[in-house]
């Protein structure tokens, strides 16, 4: 089984290396090269997806708290860094989600690659996409702090180029801001890792988790928690550190946005659960109320910002609105984690996956709208009464309504369980956390769900509904194309399945979370 994990990392790396080969290897003329490169991308990511599904099938669900498919060899003995891979109930869903989203992006971009002046070749695109996949998969598979940091950083470079070269609008400035902000955050995180690693004597996550913070004094735990928490909070945008996200999403290409929102944000919250909770429990306990406060404010702040963008005449960009909604949704995840209870953390992990699926779908849809209408600006799109997408492109309209409804947390769809369990966790936080504070966070989060419903339905009203007789920006737009259907239906289907049968994910994460929080 552990060969699967290594194969998961090596395969995309080989694919990326292959794209470095001279262009002629891919075909005689430019068009053939482009097509073959994109097909290579789809093939490799497809293979990785098959591997992850095999991994999930072979995974022993009864003992999901135990690390499975483990490879553990010394890598840099001088500083005690070990090449330690493993997967358990918490990281398995995320690995499968990453593989799925990357495969769908690869399939989508085989037919719809952003082209234009100065846009590099598809070979470079596929190479960067595969490198991105290596970084993302490694982040979820690795069980060594420094390797985690390494994977955390590998992801930034390809995403930077995706935004800076294939993006639109003020793409270079926002790409710079994205990479500088996140790098600063992860530098602080590295300090935290070093503090923990040197004091505890090992960088191995499983050993540190087993020790459950015994080897570390209280002050080092608080300091480490602060440093690591700060770095990870930048990545999963906690409220005050979120200002890189809207710009990055506004200028990123569709595929970039999907992966940025679908997977990169999860690396931050996964880090919080995998590193902060078990390794420095006392530090996290002291920081939990503040993290909860930031999360609650994030939820309300995100949704109010979206409401401001969604209103008539505010010249709001749809992608920017969806980015702010991600800030709101990740607020729920952080609230669940801050409650330090099994319910809360289970809710957080479920919301992670749900947000990945739903926001991935939303960004695909908005990207498609932007391709069809040429702009994602809500005012030009909707005009006075609305873009009447139900009439013009009924299938896209239906999918957008489905995604908006899933995103506002309708019970029966994936978005609900994460939010409800996170709020239930905050309702009754772990011992030692101040109950009134967390109940107010829960109330704020509840208000947040109402505001989320408000702005999402306003978007549906202004995009899907509308007077058909009103002159539209673009006369007739194509309804759902086959390749779009292929790359979007898995996301919609999974949202429905995860909504109707939550045990699919909670069954996996519950024992692992209890083991993580219980320690020992």
């Amino acid at each position, binding site marked *: 089984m552990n060969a699967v994990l290594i194969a998961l990392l090596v395969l995309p790396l080989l694919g990326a290396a292959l794209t470095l080969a001279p262009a002629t290897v891919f075909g005689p003329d430019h068009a053939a090269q482009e097509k073959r490169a994109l097909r290579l991308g789809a093939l490799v990511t497809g293979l990785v997806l098959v591997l992850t599904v095999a991994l999930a099938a072979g995974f022993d669900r009864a003992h999901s708290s135990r690390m499975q498919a483990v490879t553990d060899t010394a890598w840099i003995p001088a500083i005690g860094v070990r090449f330690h891979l493993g997967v358990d109930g918490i990281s398995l869903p995320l690995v499968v989600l990453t593989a799925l989203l990357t495969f769908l992006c690869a399939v989508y971009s085989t037919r719809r690659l952003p082209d234009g002046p100065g846009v590099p070749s598809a070979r470079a695109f596929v190479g960067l996409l595969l490198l991105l996949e290596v970084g993302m998969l490694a982040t979820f598979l690795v069980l060594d702090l420094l390797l985690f940091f390494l994977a955390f950083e590998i992801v930034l470079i390809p995403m930077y180029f995706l935004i800076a070269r294939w993006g639109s609008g003020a793409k270079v400035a926002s790409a710079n801001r994205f990479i500088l902000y996140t790098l600063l955050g992860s530098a602080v995180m590295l300090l935290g890792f070093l503090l923990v690693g040197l004091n505890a004597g090992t960088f191995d996550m499983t050993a540190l988790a087993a020790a459950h913070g015994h080897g570390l004094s209280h002050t080092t735990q608080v300091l480490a928690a602060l440093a690591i928490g700060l770095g990870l909070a930048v990545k999963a945008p906690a409220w005050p550190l979120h200002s890189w996200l809207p710009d990055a999403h506004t200028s990123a290409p569709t595929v970039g946005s999907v992966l940025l929102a679908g997977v990169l944000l999860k690396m931050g919250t996964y880090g919080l659960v995998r590193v902060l909770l078990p390794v420095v429990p006392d530090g996290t306990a002291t920081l939990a109320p503040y993290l909860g406060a930031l999360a609650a404010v994030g939820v309300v702040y995100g949704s109010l910002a979206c409401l401001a963008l969604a209103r008539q005449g505010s010249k709001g960009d749809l992608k920017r609105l969806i980015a702010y909604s991600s800030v709101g949704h990740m607020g729920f995840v952080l609230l669940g984690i801050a409650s330090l*209870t099994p319910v809360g953390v289970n809710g957080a992990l479920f919301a992670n996956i749900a947000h990945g699926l739903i926001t991935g779908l939303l960004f695909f849809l908005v990207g498609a709208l932007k391709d069809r209408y040429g702009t994602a600006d809500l005012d030009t799109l909707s005009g006075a009464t609305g873009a009447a997408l139900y009439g013009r492109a009924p299938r896209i309209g*239906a999918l957008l309504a489905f995604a908006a409804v899933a995103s506002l947390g*309708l019970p029966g769809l994936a978005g609900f369980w994460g939010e409800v369990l996170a709020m*239930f966790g905050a309702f*009754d936080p772990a011992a030692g956390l101040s109950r009134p504070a967390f109940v107010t966070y829960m109330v704020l989060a509840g*208000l947040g769900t*109402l505001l989320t419903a408000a702005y999402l339905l306003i978007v549906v009203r202004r995009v899907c509904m509308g007077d058909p007789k009103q002159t539209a920006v673009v006369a007739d737009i194509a309804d759902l194309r086959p390749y779009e259907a292929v790359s979007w239906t898995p996301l919609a289907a999974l949202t429905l399945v995860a909504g109707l049968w939550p045990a699919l994910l909670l069954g996996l994460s519950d024992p692992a979370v209890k083991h993580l929080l219980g320690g020992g």
Partner: protein
Amino acid sequence: MNTALPALVPALPALGAAALFATGRRAPRFARPLAILPVLISAVLALVTALQLGTGRTLDAATRLTPTGGPDISLAIHLDGYTSLITVLVGVVATCVQVYSTAYLRDDPRYASYAALVSLFTAAMFLVVYSGDLIVLLVGWEVMGICSYFLIGHHWETADARSASLKAFLVTKLGDVPFLFGLFLLGADAGTFRINGVLAAAADGRLAHPTLIALLLLGGVAGKSAQFPLHTWLPDAMAGPTPVSALIHAATMVAAGIYLVARLLPVFLLSGAALVVLAVMAAVTMIGSALCALAQDDIKRVLAYSTVGQLGYMAGALAVGDREAAVFHLVSHGAFKALLFLSAGVLIHAAHTNSLSAMSRMPWLAERVPDARWTLGIGLVALVGLPPFSGFFSKEAVFSAAEHATTRGEALTNGVGPAAGVPVAAGWIVLVAALLTALLTAAYATRLWLLAFPGRGAVAAAGTVVPRGEAAEGHAAALADTGEDLPVAASSTATAPSVHATEPAAMRWPLWVLALPTMVFGIAGLRPNWLPALLDGGSLRPSPATAVLGTGLALAGVLISYAAWRTVTARAARARAAEAAGAAAPQSTDAVDPGRALLGPLYGPAQHGFGVDRLYERLFVLPTLGAARLVRFLDREVVEGYVQASGGGARLLGWAVRRAQTGNAQTYLSALLAGVVLIAVFVAVGT
């Protein structure tokens, strides 16, 4: 008795909905059978389950849906008398509505998605009634809310449908947020989300703060059942197609709130304060909505306000602790209100307008739709509560429950909870409000009847008559101003309404199917006494005192309204005669409305729902939008400011260090020596 049957009841319509969504566009001809068959079968199954269950037995079955780290969430079924009664009602009404819709929306391009959403809604309602787990109940609860959102927004071409659907969902969602917190409190105190577990915890007194729980749950109930603070969405929801109003906004969804309070009544009985709040809420809803119904011009808005009022009755019955009366009234109201809406639909379909004043100028309307005329009459009589129809018995049950509650310890809690738990104040509030509302209900019911079907003489006196032929052509204008709910696409081909072109069969026989229970349900239920046995066993027979008082008030209401109508038409006739003689200015055509005479100064505010909408606009909507603008400013200036400042700060630091390079060797040397001295001092001091 295995649980396969009840499990199928919610599953079938859901599968029907999925099938409709899938094949809607590709194979429209399957739409009709796929719409009707699943709901019909599930109605039959519900009836079979009810009969199998018999009276006085309950059935519980559960499998774990998912672990959560805390209390588990389970797919649970809880069957008892109440579920049998309500599922049969829902089944019957849903089938009638689906059949009715096949004709009503015959050539609507989006019929498939409409039918799918109605089936999904029915499945959600079944799930709410059958569910034994509060979180799964919440799932059904909110799926109903989203289906109502999509159905209200069915005619998304018209502006008010767009805004009404958004408003409906947001107001119910506003109610659902405290509802969720109430469920959390229940789940945390009882240690499980199973309803039996919660009721057992209530019995053992393990609920820490029942008043808070009850008030939070009331938030959700007020939202869903359109009670006083959160009722503003229901009248606007009439922008949706009429069958939707019949099913969702009359019989089922709005009743879900009442069903939930009935199910969790032991929790409510633990706190007197919550019952008083419920009583006050019910009273204000009853009286306010009755007054508003008296002043509405749109026939559907009258029925909508009437629904809000009747729900106030049920809430009042719950406030005095008698859930039997509440559910009895719920079922009978479900039947006759659905009947009223469907017949109103037929009326609108024929007259091509919603507005009562327009109908009052169409004398030919009566013979045009005889079935609708009769069923509307039966419905209105049941609504007013005149014997022998079901409305009378269920309303009397509420009156007697209220009357019993006025004396301490006498409340009809039928063993569900301590009779003393019901405060006397709640009893008096509900009794007085109920009686007053009986009067007002009779008034607006009669007004509706008189305006909808004016006799020949009265119309001649009232003035201009809308000839039959002209109605067909003029309907576009009528359609525009009254936001009539007829599908736009079907407008142009309406045949010139001739006498014998009555409504299609599919719209007529559901009326009679629903008329049957409206007439018979009261008598059938009480005579052989199977209804009380099915429920909690308390006798639902009307007590003589309230029966006489209630019926008297109802008759008084009818007479007052008729008298007002007579005087108004007489005055209009005199004015017509004077105007014919050229003396006075032409009277406005809608002077015939008795409501204006009865309400007098209250007519203006009543027409606009007493300004509650404007109040909410100012209280909630404007501050939220202000906060949104503030956040947009904060984000662009403050949070962004920090990021820019960090960039600027780094450059400033660089500039400062640069200035140290003065080029003068002596400054460097001084700095060097100062450093050396400092180090020497630290080393000397440090060791």
